[in-house]
């Protein structure tokens, strides 16, 4: 019988280290996880609030909105209306996780299994993170961003910087490349960028390089009829979904430092984008990992029953899914759905039913369920994962049903329930609700004639008749106008029929 890792609620750094090694043994050798080296930091409640306000980043430039978030979270925390997370984990290499000092030793163990191994594995192996984020460079980049913006504040004043940041933040969701990979800068560009960052040099040279190298090659000229328009569109790589990118490259009024700020904001938005697309999977992966690990720890006699019960208590709280008519209901809980799906995949591997064999012929009955899970964690995002792996069994277990909400009808209609006719549609609709490209409005830069009226023309492709909230839209358009320097218009049209639905402009 091996010794217990710990016995009692108090943690020490020696105990943490011992627990970490025991978890690592299970995670790497038994579960076959592949992780970045871990760096685990112990922080206080106030520091946790800090991290909250800065979207979980260890370093962040300064902006009033973070102060607002801090004030809000602090008020919620102090009045006991909101607890704090046990941990925060950052997609970086080494993988940094913050653990709260208030956790008991059992909780620290659980949190390590969850964050330092579960999330860590997901960050390192999921294709979205691999392709779209650079885990080893993020810290340096954040440090650069913080210093750069502090430098700008000193040079140009807090107000001037705030104005640009406000506008850029308003466009954050329009600051990512959803479909194409962001163009990678060439060696020359990198050098130019480096120089420019060091000396705040004029960015002109960098811009030329960007537009000529990366962007021009990608456009397709043939389909365009209007030659002036097509020239413009070719030159500016239009239409463009990444509005921040477009403004950074083509706004006629921005100074070099202002463009750099836009770049920082959109770079961070792009860095966060994979996380927004993998909430269910990421939490599911981490929760299932900690679940496997603490069970193994108990089986190996490394933790007491008491510690195990404490962890399971917290675990069950986390994966609680209130039903739709429960006052606690606040949407599907990504932990609950993710965990249930991981468990279900294992069930399908180990004890498939006829139905499972019919629905999941590729892996039902596969003896290496861990390999199936690892493959899923590596190659899917929430939308595709649900579309691929949500089983009728689970739909029944969650008793999922679908409401059709058509504004033209007086009532909501129950369109599908958990039966044979409903499975596929419910699964597809649930998957779509995790598809950010569908959930976030589709807004693109259509055209901007700098030699003509200079109006920046945005289009909103309206899907399913869901329009933009007019108040927010008008406010954001004002911000866009600030960055573009001239008037901005937005045309909303139905994405199927092309019927024009509305047109607003900052000129009016």
């Amino acid at each position, binding site marked *: 019988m091996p010794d217990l890792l710990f016995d009692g609620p108090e943690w020490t750094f020696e105990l943490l280290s011992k627990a970490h090694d025991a978890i690592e043994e299970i995670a790497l050798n038994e579960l076959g996880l592949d992780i970045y080296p871990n760096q685990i930091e112990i922080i206080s409640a106030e520091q946790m609030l800090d991290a909250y306000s800065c979207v979980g980043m260890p370093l962040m430039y300064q902006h009033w909105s973070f102060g607002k978030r801090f*004030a809000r979270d602090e008020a919620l925390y102090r009045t006991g209306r909101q607890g704090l997370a046990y941990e925060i984990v950052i997609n970086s290499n080494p993988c940094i996780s913050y653990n709260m000092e208030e956790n008991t030793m059992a909780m620290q163990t659980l949190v390590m299994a969850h964050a330092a191994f579960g999330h860590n594995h997901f960050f390192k192996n999921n294709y979205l993170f691999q392709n779209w984020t650079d885990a080893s460079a993020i810290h340096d980049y954040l440090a650069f961003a913080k210093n750069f913006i502090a430098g700008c504040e000193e040079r140009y004043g807090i107000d001037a910087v705030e104005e640009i940041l406000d506008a850029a933040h308003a466009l954050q969701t329009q600051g990512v490349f959803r479909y194409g990979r962001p163009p990678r800068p060439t060696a020359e560009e990198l050098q130019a960028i480096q120089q420019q960052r060091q000396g705040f040099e004029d960015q002109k040279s960098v811009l030329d390089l960007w537009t000529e190298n990366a962007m021009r090659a990608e456009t397709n000229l043939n389909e365009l009829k209007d030659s002036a328009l097509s020239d413009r569109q070719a030159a500016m790589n239009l239409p463009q979904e990444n509005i921040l990118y477009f403004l950074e490259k083509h706004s006629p009024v921005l100074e070099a430092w202002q463009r750099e700020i836009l770049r920082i904001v959109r770079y961070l938005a792009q860095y966060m984008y994979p996380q927004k697309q993998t909430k269910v999977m990421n939490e599911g992966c981490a929760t299932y990992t900690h679940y496997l690990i603490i069970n193994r720890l108990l089986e190996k006699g490394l933790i007491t029953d008491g510690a195990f019960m404490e962890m399971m208590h917290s675990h069950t709280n986390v994966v609680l899914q209130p039903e739709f008519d429960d006052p606690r209901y606040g949407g599907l809980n990504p932990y609950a759905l993710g965990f249930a799906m991981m468990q279900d995949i294992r069930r399908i591997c180990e004890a498939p039913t006829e139905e499972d064999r019919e629905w999941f012929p590729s892996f039902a009955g596969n003896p290496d369920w861990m390999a199936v899970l690892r493959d899923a964690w590596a190659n899917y995002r929430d939308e595709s994962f649900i579309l691929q792996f949500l089983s009728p069994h689970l739909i029944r277990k969650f008793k999922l049903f679908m409401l059709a909400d058509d504004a033209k009808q007086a009532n909501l209609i129950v369109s599908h329930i958990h039966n044979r006719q409903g499975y596929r549609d419910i699964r597809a609709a649930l998957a779509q609700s995790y598809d950010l490209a569908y959930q976030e409005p589709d807004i693109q830069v259509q055209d901007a004639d700098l030699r003509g009226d200079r109006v920046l023309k945005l289009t909103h492709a309206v899907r399913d008749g869901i329009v933009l*909230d007019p108040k*927010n839209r008008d406010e954001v358009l004002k911000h866009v106008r600030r960055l573009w320097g001239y008037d901005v218009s937005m045309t909303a049209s139905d994405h199927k029929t092309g019927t024009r639905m509305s047109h607003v402009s900052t000129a009016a």
Partner: protein
Amino acid sequence: MHHFIDRRPNPKGKSLGNRQRFLRRAKENIKKMVDRSVRQKSVTDADPSGGEEVTIPAKGIKEPFFASSPKGGFRRHVLPGNKDFVVGDAIPRPKGGAGEGGRKASEDGEGEDGFSFTLTRDEYLEILFEGLELPDLVKKNTFEMETSGTRRAGLTTAGTPNNLNLVRTMRNSLGRRIALRRPSQASFQAVVDELAKLEDIDAPDEELQARIAALQEKLALLERRRKLVGYIDPIDLRFDTHVPEKIRNSKAVVFCLMDVSGSMQEREKDLAKRFFMLLHLFLERAYEHTEVVFIRHTHHAQEVDEETFFYARETGGTIVSTALKKMQEIIEERYPVDEWNIYGAQASDGENFGNDSEKCRQILSEVLLPSCQYYAYVEIVEESDEKLLADAEEGADLWQNLRQVEAKFPQFEIRRVAEPGHIYPIFRELFAAGKSEGR
């Protein structure tokens, strides 16, 4: 490879910069709210030592983004926990939009109307006296006395009956009774009743007798159980304990004296109020217990409550010495000098009747000042009165007499103010470090 880092000793206030930017952003609104709160607040409960909760309109601090409207269009919602819906059921649309819109707003912590958060005391004071630097307020030497008393010190399992903590004892008893399954009075009584009913029947047959026997057995068991598991057991008992403790006795009383004759208008009163409030805030911090006494005067003085002090109108002449006499009376009556730290603060527009100023000087020098820790006189003058503001030599009869007092007593100070901005620097000047040492 792994390592652990203890970040807890890192410097605090990492987000201070963000907070400053936030306050700066919302300054106008915050200032409006703070100003309003000062006006509404009473001098005695103005202490924001735990911070000051303010709610500002969310308008200026909105972060807009291209958001889908919560209404209209065609949507599909997938929800868990179907009970008895079948395909085709129609459900009335929940009021206030399709749920999601409402949720988003509350997730943001800001409804349409307001954003609430807490200002720290320093931030509050800074905004209250905007444009002024807030120095570290220095505690004056305070007279402290020690008396002994007792303090509560938790619960024990032994003690005298008069200290029995009934709530905790009964809670323990209840828990133990549930855990050990003590038969309740009701269930016991039920068996007794049933037994009595059966025994009443004449000529019982065999079956009935068997039941009676069974019930009697059950009754005996219950009785034994109830005896064994007592209603209250010695282990349930909890007693309050008290430990003797030396208590630092530091009490202070602030006398706020104000001239309320016709010449004191809204502006003058507002200035005076700010001064009194600051003094009270300051003393609250320095002493465990502070009281405030309001004395207003025209040609006669009376002790009043705060509301009357600031807002009631009074007409009449101005005789300052009446207020001082009143203060003297109250001290003699209620505030023995060896127990109380006495502070005086007086605001006036500087007018006084005839040769009353002479009398004021006498009362102050001979009676009041020797027993006062500190006494500040603030004269509120017109903003246009630059001559008076610039030159302390200038001034009416009262001012001149008080100047003489000031020269003799270090704990007596006089100042002139004309606008809210003056109050804080003057207050700071009055309470500057090291000033009252050697007294």
